[in-house]
Every structure is written in C-alpha cells, then in structure tokens.
C-alpha cells in the first residue's frame, strides 16, 4: 500500500512536469516563422470584428466575413453593415475594393501582405518580442506575442492559433495602451470548403487606380497634386482627402520596405502643419512651394524626412 502511494505520487509529479513542459510557449521567432511558412497553406471561413481609430480620432468597429485560401482572400460585410454590398479581394499582392452600388473597383497595393507574411517584429528603433500563453479566441487556444519598444511599452500584440498558422487576434496600441487598430475572430472554421469562383473579380466594373483617384480628389480640392518619387522605393498605398478647419487636405499614404510615410498637401495652411506636441515616435517635416503647403510625416528622424521631402514632385513632372 505504501509503495502504491509512493508510485502514485511520483506519477502525478512526472505528469505535472510533462504538462508544464508542454505548455511552455515557443520562442517568438519560431512562432513568426511558423506563421510565415504556413501563410500560403491556411484555408478557412471566419467572422471577425474589426476596430480602428479613424483619422479624426473616432473609433469605428464593424464585422467582416472572410474566406481565405492561402494568400487569396475575399472579405464581405453583413447586410446591416455600412459596407454592405462591398467586397475586398486580396489577390497577388493587390487589393480590390468592389462597390456593387457604383459598379466600380478601386485598386491599391495589398494592405494585408505585410501583416500576413511579416506578422510582427520589434518596433522600429529597437525593442523586443516576448511569447507567452494567451487567452482563448474564437474557442481556440493561443500563444501571444508582444512587441515592446525600447522603453518596454507594448506596441503590438498578436494571438496565434496553437495549431494553425493564423493570427486570431491582433492589437496595435498607442503609447498609452489604447487600441489604435485591431481585429478579433469571433468564429472560424479551418479547411472550410471555399465556393468555386469566390475569388473571381466581378466583371464589367469600372477600374479606378490610385493614380486616377489622386487626380480626381486633387481636382475637387483645387490642388495641384504632388507625389513622392517612386524611385525612393515608396509606393502609394492610399489616397483620400479630409476637411480640417474648413481647409481641404489631400492625404497620400506611402509604404516601403523600410517605413511608411504620409504626404499631406493643401492650397494654403491656416496654421502650422506641425503638431503642438511632438510625438515620441513620429516626426513631421513641413514646407511650402508654389503656393501650396506640404507636410511629410513618418516614423524616422528629421533628416531622413527632409531627404524624402526633396523627392516630392508635382504629378506628371519628372
């Protein structure tokens, strides 16, 4: 009886040790590699909730329905969504936003490519990645990777499925820990049967390129559009306009392998385009030329911004 009790105790201790060892999270690098390697193979049908802080400071939340097979995606929206009737296709490094009501497709570089293949890395300027056990997301067990900056502030978190190469939840945070943008799957079915033709773009829709959209928005705003020289390695990823204090600002967002910058342009700035308080991460470079005011914003030092600013030229002029 005594031996049996001793053997039972030993078994419990051994089993507990094995369980504890099994629960040790992989290294962040191993998880990132698993995600990157598996990105081309993962297939699912899922519903996720998206949250993002809009440029004006408001937070917007909405639901997306995703069908994905490897690097091909199609996102649609529920009938009660403000985006009902639209679809976003992510195909071969490009993003196609189809609007059924207007029968048009807006084409831009893929917004998801970096997020899918590069997943997460230490913040620019140095930092660290930490992996640990995460909460359950969409009824699935997860590992969490946190990206901390040099000051130890968490700038991003991803919840990685323990068995599939997929991020189930993601949060991009500001310096106060508030979510700037993110998503969370609420339900997911891996290896779902994807309907044939799910990734086929609607035929007959009017194609609107970013270049055309930039010209159109600039014309509406009465601005002579300028662009960042493509030879810098920066690609235009988005264009829009916004009204601030009665002044129209033309916004362009550029991405490259080394960074992301915004080019803001207006006919005449009512006040300095430099913020009253400096951000710890982002810098602003402003200048005026030809009766127009410009601001270049990015996560880089002032000299680098100034160098890029010299590569801004009026559209159509080499």
């Amino acid at each position, binding site marked *: 009886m005594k031996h049996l009790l001793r053997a039972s105790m030993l078994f419990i201790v051994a089993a507990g040790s094995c369980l504890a060892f099994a629960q040790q999270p992989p290294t962040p690098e191993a998880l990132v590699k698993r995600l990157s390697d598996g990105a081309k193979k993962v297939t699912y049908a899922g519903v996720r909730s998206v949250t993002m802080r809009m440029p004006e400071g408001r937070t917007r939340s909405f639901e997306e329905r995703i069908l994905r097979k490897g690097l091909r995606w199609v996102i649609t929206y529920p009938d009660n969504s403000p985006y009902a009737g639209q679809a976003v296709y992510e195909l071969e490094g490009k993003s196609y936003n189809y609007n059924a009501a207007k029968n048009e497709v807006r084409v831009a570089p893929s917004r998801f490519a970096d997020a899918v293949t590069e997943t997460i890395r230490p913040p620019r300027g140095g930092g660290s990645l930490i992996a640990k056990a995460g909460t359950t997301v969409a009824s699935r067990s997860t590992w969490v990777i946190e990206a901390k900056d040099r000051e130890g502030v968490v700038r991003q978190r991803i919840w990685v499925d323990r068995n599939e190469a997929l991020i189930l939840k993601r949060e991009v945070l500001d310096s106060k820990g508030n979510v*700037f943008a993110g998503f969370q799957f609420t339900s997911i079915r891996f290896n779902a049967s994807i309907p044939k033709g799910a990734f086929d773009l609607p035929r007959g829709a009017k194609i609107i390129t970013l270049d055309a959209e930039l010209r159109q928005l600039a014309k509406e705003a009465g601005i002579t559009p300028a662009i960042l020289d493509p030879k810098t390695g920066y690609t235009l990823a988005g264009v829009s306009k916004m009204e601030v204090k009665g002044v129209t600002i033309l916004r362009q967002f550029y991405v490259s392998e080394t960074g992301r910058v915004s080019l803001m342009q207006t006919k005449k700035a009512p006040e300095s385009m430099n913020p009253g308080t400096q951000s710890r991460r982002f810098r602003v470079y402003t200048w005026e030329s030809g009766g127009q005011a410009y601001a270049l914003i990015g996560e880089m030092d002032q000299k680098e911004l100034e160098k890029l600013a010299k590569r801004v030229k009026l559209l159509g002029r080499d």
Partner: protein
Amino acid sequence: MNRDLLNKLKNEQALDTAERLDLEQALERGEASPAAQWMSQLHDEDPSMAWRSQLNAKLQEIAPAPAKKRFNWLGTSAIAAAGVCAAFVLFTMNRPPAVTEPQPHDRVAGVSTSNNDLGTVLMTAHQADDAQIAAGVRAPMRTIDVGYDWSSLESR
C-alpha cells in the same frame, strides 16, 4: 600775561594750551590774579526745572516727527511679482508632462477642431493609417456615399 588771559576770558576767546594750564593752576592755588578773580565771580547758575521742561517742550515742537511707515509700492510689487513667479514655477513643475501621443477627441470633417491644432490632426491621421497597415485591416468607403457627413447627426 594775566591781563591778556583775562581779556581773552572776557571776550570769550579760545585759550591756547599754556593759557589753559596757567588758568587751572591759578584757580587751584586760589591766586588773586584778575583772571582767577574774574572766574570765581562767575555765577554758576543751575537751570531751573521749569526752564528744562520749557526747553523739552520746545525741542518736542521743533523736533521732526518720526517718519510714518509709508506704503512702499515698489517693494510690495516686487514681492508680489516674486510670489506670482514662484507659484507659476511650482505649477509648471507639478503639471503632468505633455501628452506625447496626440489624443484628439473631435471630429475633423466639417466641424470644429478647436481642441486640436492642424498638425495634431494630421499626425493622428498618419497614425491611423500606419496602425491599419500594421494590423492588416482597412475601412472601405461607405457603400452609398451621397457626400454628406452624417457623423455630426449620429453623435447627438
């Protein structure tokens, strides 16, 4: 010599050292010199108390009144200014540090952005785009866009 001394005494002239010595010796010796006799005849009158009180009263009348402590505008202003400066310095030192990350809470489009300077709004716009790219999310254009910003009504 003695006559000279007497004349000097009568005329209330200043005596030199030798003359003062002669006079003192003569007085001590009780000599009947004209100078000593003239000195002994001098009446050493003690001033009466009435005279003293009159003198005191006159002195009080003519004595300048003690200066009243006048309000010193210059000094007071300097002290007050120093106090205000000290309070301002304390307030500034104890104030929470400036917000590094812009936190706008007003809409941009078509409404007042009094709480945000233009630069802050532009910075936030960039941060929003940057975060969306990092998170791999995007907000499509609203399906039916009639060109009116409804958010001003939605917020009420």
